[in-house]
């Protein structure tokens, strides 16, 4: 490429756009700087208030907690101002006068959710609960409770024009804006929930980067800080809600409390009060949680490291989502002793082969859980929420990947035997290009998906990369290599109609027929095929990746159709067989006595056909029939049975073609006569083309010796076997072994280079 001035300017502009993005805290204007300062200032003020808070103290000026549920009952249009006239800030009790929860919710949390171990701490809970829990969620009510008004400070709003430097003052309420419909409500009755739990162990110390110590709170045997990612939706996935929030885990009692945080609710400072509203040890719990939260604040220097991203996220979450408080109670692991739990934990963390029976490890189970949204008045409850530990899940996925690698290896081996089986152009010519294109497309996109996954899941990097590698070798080296030779052997037929091909002929020898101007060599075919392969691969992979986020109905239809189409890979081969007209097995054995034994074999090895079908359908069968599969795919046995029958049908057709001849299903009169290389010649031919040295012979251009030919008019030549020589469509005569040998290299006439119909 020549680089002129315009290109250079273009490149510089692109580079400028790349490198001029804001770094660090993401601030790109004076306005944003002021926004960020306001946010930090607000958090610092609230943190100071938080430090002075005691168990008997109310919330004062903390965002989102200025109003209690009782305030809203008293005056539904009450604005959240501080101090509220007549409100008692010096006392705090766990009831709706002081909390944003109604008394009914508080009671049901006390009696139904957090009821496993109140005073006694004899129950044992696993200290490390990284996992993904799946279960069902039900709506209890979405209109019964008063919605607490939570204003969004206006300084979060983006600048209205470039000259704006100072963010606006004041606050806005939802009621002053247009409503967002189901965004601020939950409208389905029954749905599914997924809770991902991460531990905040890997926080990096932002103050001194070079030390890189991990966050360990002083009371880590009793309290852990978690990150909770809660997603719930209805079955059809039309309405999705997702909450990401910090959580506190009480290891002694198996309780998890999570309150979402946004610009209208600063839940960090409410965790101590809401964790401790229950029993007689409450003041102790309050102080411990407060200490943990404060430790976390200091460790991460919470306010100092905020960026513009936090500002925007907080603003978006406040506008688009309800705030949710999540109360979870885990099932105790009382079947283990404390030492056993520690052993299991160590083994999962750092496997050494300790005698911890990991295969019998019970799943983490939420025995009771409640979601309540104070600002939307929505109450949800969950049941059957459980999941195995993350490390166990990784181990299980690893086993699946290893099995997949074995499948790839088997497929590579089968393909090699198949390639060895068809090692002449005549044989390769009978193979369907589209059959292998479909197989190749699936393998190629699997390789890309594995590569993508390898960068997402660092724990499985090694097996994923090995899988991607073996898959990529299979797809882009062996299969493409085979496709290139198939394509090269079929170049002759590109401009020929199916009927002509049925005649077994690349068209009668016809001077007027446009022949390909040049026959491309394998190098150029390879180039174009590789280009097509990678293009298809990228398109297909993007389609697959985007389809995972489609609504359930559409996604399932797409999936079923796609799996059906991609499992029809023998259909093109059936058509190809019919076009090429392979004789039945009996005829083949008969004709093999007379020579050309290699030319009439079935193009596909049976071990390849059966092996490939099994290898390719095993994953589908697993995903669709094994209900607790690693992909969280639903179970559908009917589809698998249908698919197996379909594959069986294809294979049986292939087999019948092998036994009965590949055109048995075509009516006799639709099959035109094929070209026959073996025919008698006339004396005209000799006079036209000149004979050989002896009488009634011609020269074979390959071995340069005489070919005795059968001439209709000359009776003494009738002793000559018509199968001993071959006449090409372009009227050149060769010995049968000579031309057959040549045709196993190239399907072109050795004399005039016109295409030859394969045998």
């Amino acid at each position, binding site marked *: 490429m020549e680089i002129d001035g315009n290109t250079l300017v273009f490149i510089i502009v692109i580079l400028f756009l790349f490198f001029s993005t804001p770094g660090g805290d993401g601030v790109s204007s004076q306005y944003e700087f002021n926004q960020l300062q306001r946010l930090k200032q607000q958090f610092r003020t609230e943190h100071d208030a938080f430090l002075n808070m005691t168990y008997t103290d109310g919330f004062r000026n903390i965002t989102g907690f200025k109003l209690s549920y009782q305030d809203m009952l008293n005056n539904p249009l009450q604005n959240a101002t501080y101090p509220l006239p007549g409100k008692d800030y010096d006392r705090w009790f766990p009831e709706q006068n002081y909390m944003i929860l109604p008394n009914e919710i508080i009671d049901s949390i006390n009696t139904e959710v957090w009821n496993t171990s109140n005073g006694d701490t004899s129950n044992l809970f696993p200290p490390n609960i990284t996992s993904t829990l799946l279960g069902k969620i039900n709506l209890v009510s979405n209109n019964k409770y008063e919605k607490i008004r939570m204003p969004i400070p206006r300084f979060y709003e983006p600048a209205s024009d470039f000259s704006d430097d100072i963010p606006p003052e004041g606050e806005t309420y939802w009621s002053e804006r247009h409503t967002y419909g189901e965004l601020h409500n939950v409208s389905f009755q029954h749905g599914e929930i997924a809770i991902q739990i991460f531990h905040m162990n890997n926080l990096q110390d932002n103050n001194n980067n070079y030390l890189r110590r991990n966050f360990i709170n002083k009371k880590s045997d009793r309290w852990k800080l978690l990150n909770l990612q809660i997603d719930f939706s209805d079955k059809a996935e039309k309405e999705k809600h997702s909450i990401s929030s910090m959580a506190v885990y009480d290891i002694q009692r198996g309780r998890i409390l999570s309150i979402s945080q946004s610009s209208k609710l600063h839940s960090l400072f409410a965790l101590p009060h809401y964790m401790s509203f229950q029993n007689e040890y409450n003041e102790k719990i309050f102080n411990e949680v407060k200490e943990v939260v404060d430790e976390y604040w200091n460790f991460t220097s919470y306010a100092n490291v905020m960026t513009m991203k936090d500002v925007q996220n907080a603003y978006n979450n406040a506008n688009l989502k309800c705030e949710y408080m999540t109360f979870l109670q885990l099932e105790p692991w009382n079947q283990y002793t404390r030492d056993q739990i520690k052993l299991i934990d160590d083994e999962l963390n750092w496997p050494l*082969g300790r005698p911890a029976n990991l295969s019998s490890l019970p799943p983490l189970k939420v025995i009771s859980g409640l979601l309540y949204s104070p600002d939307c008045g929505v109450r949800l409850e969950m049941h059957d929420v459980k999941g195995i530990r993350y490390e166990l899940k990784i181990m299980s996925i690893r086993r699946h990947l290893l099995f997949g690698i074995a499948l790839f290896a088997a497929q590579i081996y089968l393909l*090699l035997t198949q*390639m*060895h089986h068809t090692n002449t152009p005549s044989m390769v010519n009978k193979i369907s290009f589209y059959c292998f294109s479909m197989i190749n497309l699936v393998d190629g996109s699997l390789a890309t998906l594995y590569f993508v996954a390898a960068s997402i899941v660092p724990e499985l990097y090694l097996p994923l990369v*090995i899988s991607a590698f073996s898959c990529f070798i299979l797809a882009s080296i062996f299969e493409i290599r085979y496709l290139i030779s198939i394509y090269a052997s079929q170049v002759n037929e590109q401009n020929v109609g199916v009927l002509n091909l049925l005649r077994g002929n690349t068209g009668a020898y016809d001077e007027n027929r446009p022949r390909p101007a040049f026959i491309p060599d394998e190098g150029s075919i390879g180039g174009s095929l590789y280009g097509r392969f990678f293009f298809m691969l990228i398109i297909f992979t993007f389609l697959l990746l985007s389809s995972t986020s489609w609504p359930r109905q559409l996604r399932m239809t797409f999936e079923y159709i796609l799996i059906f189409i991609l499992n029809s890979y023998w259909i093109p081969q059936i058509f190809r067989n019919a076009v090429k007209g392979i004789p039945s097995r009996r005829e083949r054995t008969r004709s093999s006595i007379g020579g050309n*034994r290699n030319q009439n074999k079935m193009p596909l090895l049976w071990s390849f056909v059966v092996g490939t079908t099994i290898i390719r359908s095993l994953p589908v069968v697993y995903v669709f029939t094994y209900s607790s599969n690693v992909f969280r795919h639903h179970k559908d046995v009917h589809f698998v049975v249908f698919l197996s029958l379909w594959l069986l049908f294809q294979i049986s057709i292939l087999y019948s073609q092998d036994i009965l001849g590949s055109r048995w299903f075509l009516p006799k009169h639709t099959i035109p006569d094929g070209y026959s290389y073996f025919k008698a010649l006339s004396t005209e031919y000799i006079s036209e083309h000149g004979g050989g040295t002896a009488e009634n012979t011609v020269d074979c251009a390959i071995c340069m010796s005489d070919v005795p030919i059968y001439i209709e008019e000359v009776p003494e030549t009738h002793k000559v076997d018509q199968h001993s020589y071959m006449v090409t469509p372009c009227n050149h005569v060769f010995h049968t072994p000579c031309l057959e040998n040549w045709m196993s290299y190239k399907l072109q006439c050795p004399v005039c280079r016109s295409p030859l119909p394969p045998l």
Partner: protein
Amino acid sequence: MSMEPPVGLASMPVTKLSMVMTLVVPLVASIASYKHLFLLQYDPFLQTYHQYFRLFIFQFCAINESDTVILALLWYLFRHLERLLGSHKYLTLIALSWMYTTLAIWGLNLIWNAFIGQFTWLQWNNFSTGSLPIVLSLMHFYKEYTPQIYEWSIRLLGPRGGVASQNYNKQEDKSAVDWSINDQFLLNGLILLLILNQGFAGIICGFISWMCGIFIDKGLLPGLDHWRIPFVSHYISRGPPTRADVAMAANAATNTAAARATAQAATAVAGSSNAGNSGPASIPLRGSSTTPTDSSTAGDDEPGADEPARPLGVQFLDIFRR
């Protein structure tokens, strides 16, 4: 025995097996994330958990990648031993070394920890990883039975070219250091690296294993003289070519078909007489032009006779050649 060692592992099945195992087992174990099973320590695995299976598998997989590579190189250098002893005897020697070194290391470890290792800081806890014990046991045989082919010396002069540079008499330079190095210095260096790489455990286990090798050789630890691993001779029948094989192969190539028949008979006789001692005598050098098996005698009516047999490895390569 010729001075030039054969290159490659074409006729060395046991060496090939050892190298492949040394490389493939760690690879598969790390992909499957089961490498920790090959870690052996007295506390907690033997003492607390009673996981005695670790004793029998720890020699199959080195934990460190560097150990894996060093061991693979050492197995390659030890191919002379296979040439010397014959594949069957070599395999027997490896198996015996594996058994005796494992038992010796384990037993001595138990004795040490029962009497001296009562104190925590004296406890012998760590073991070597990988096939270090087997290799150290084989090293005795290598040193004992492989002739030194050449040596050279390195002369290190004193500071500033040594005193000799002024005296014009290098022979009298007292500060110069002479290092004599023979052709086995690569092996010595690798063994040293292997042992030092594993620290104290490597030194102890290595020393015990070396003693095991000596005792096996002297017959103190029985087995090598009269016993062979049964049932495997079929798989390793293509042992390394011995001098007799080479001679016979040359003979067969130069002589007529009649002479060839007698040579084959001689091979058969030699094979049956050698079987007890140094493994079955093998067919002659593969791939050389002197091979007496004549492909032209194969029937033409056999399918695929017109093209040579293509093993899978050749198929792989052919795919890219085409």
